[in-house]
């Protein structure tokens, strides 16, 4: 009786498996880049213009990184909606 139940369970499980394989899509290459470290001002710098250039570079880096995060969030939301639309 025990074996019969096991066989029946196995039959039910195997017969209920739908042979459709799905995988969550890969992240676009551009969104896999890591955020770079902020630049530091070289020692001994006394000119404000040189410091401002470093600061500008860091601001730019921040904007780039922020956009990457926003893009990632948008990508995940879209892909999740698409993935879950298949029922």
């Amino acid at each position, binding site marked *: 009786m025990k074996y019969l139940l096991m066989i029946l369970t196995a039959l039910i499980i195997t017969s209920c498996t739908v042979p459709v394989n799905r995988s969550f899509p890969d992240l676009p290459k551009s969104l896999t880049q890591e955020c770079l*470290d902020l630049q530091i001002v070289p*020692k001994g710098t006394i*000119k404000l213009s040189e*410091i401002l250039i470093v600061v*500008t570079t860091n601001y730019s880096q921040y904007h780039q990184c922020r956009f990457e995060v926003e893009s990632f969030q948008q990508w995940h939301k879209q892909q999740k909606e698409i993935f879950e639309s298949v029922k």
Partner: protein
Amino acid sequence: MWFLTWLVNWTPDFVFHLMIIIGAIGILVSFFMNLLPSIVPLISPYKTLIQIISIALLLCGTWFEGFNTNNKVWEAKVKDLQEQVAISEKKSTEANDKIEYVYVDRIKVIKDTQTQTTNNIKKDANEIDKQCNVITEAVDILNSSATNQKSFK
């Protein structure tokens, strides 16, 4: 289970219909044998055998018919799901391409802005530096902020 699926797929549908029809006719004939006096002498010795075979055919035919129908329903579901998956994969690729395109465009704007600002600073460097000289401590404080390290005295 795979064997049954294979068997049902391999066997034409009419075989199952035929099993049910033959089974039903066999049962009817065997139960109402007395109403058919002309053939009774020929088949009456096999009455029980005919009944058993007919019932078996009817049961198996009905079971396979059900299995076949169920199998077809599942196959249709799988096909539908595969179509949906193909559509979703296409949508997903399109969404990826769009994000990639927007990304490249936006990064270009950010880089252009940086270049423009840097050029402006370089252009006015003399004016900026004339007004202000930066002490070493200020640079250290700024760097500690950039590297996320506490350096307050």
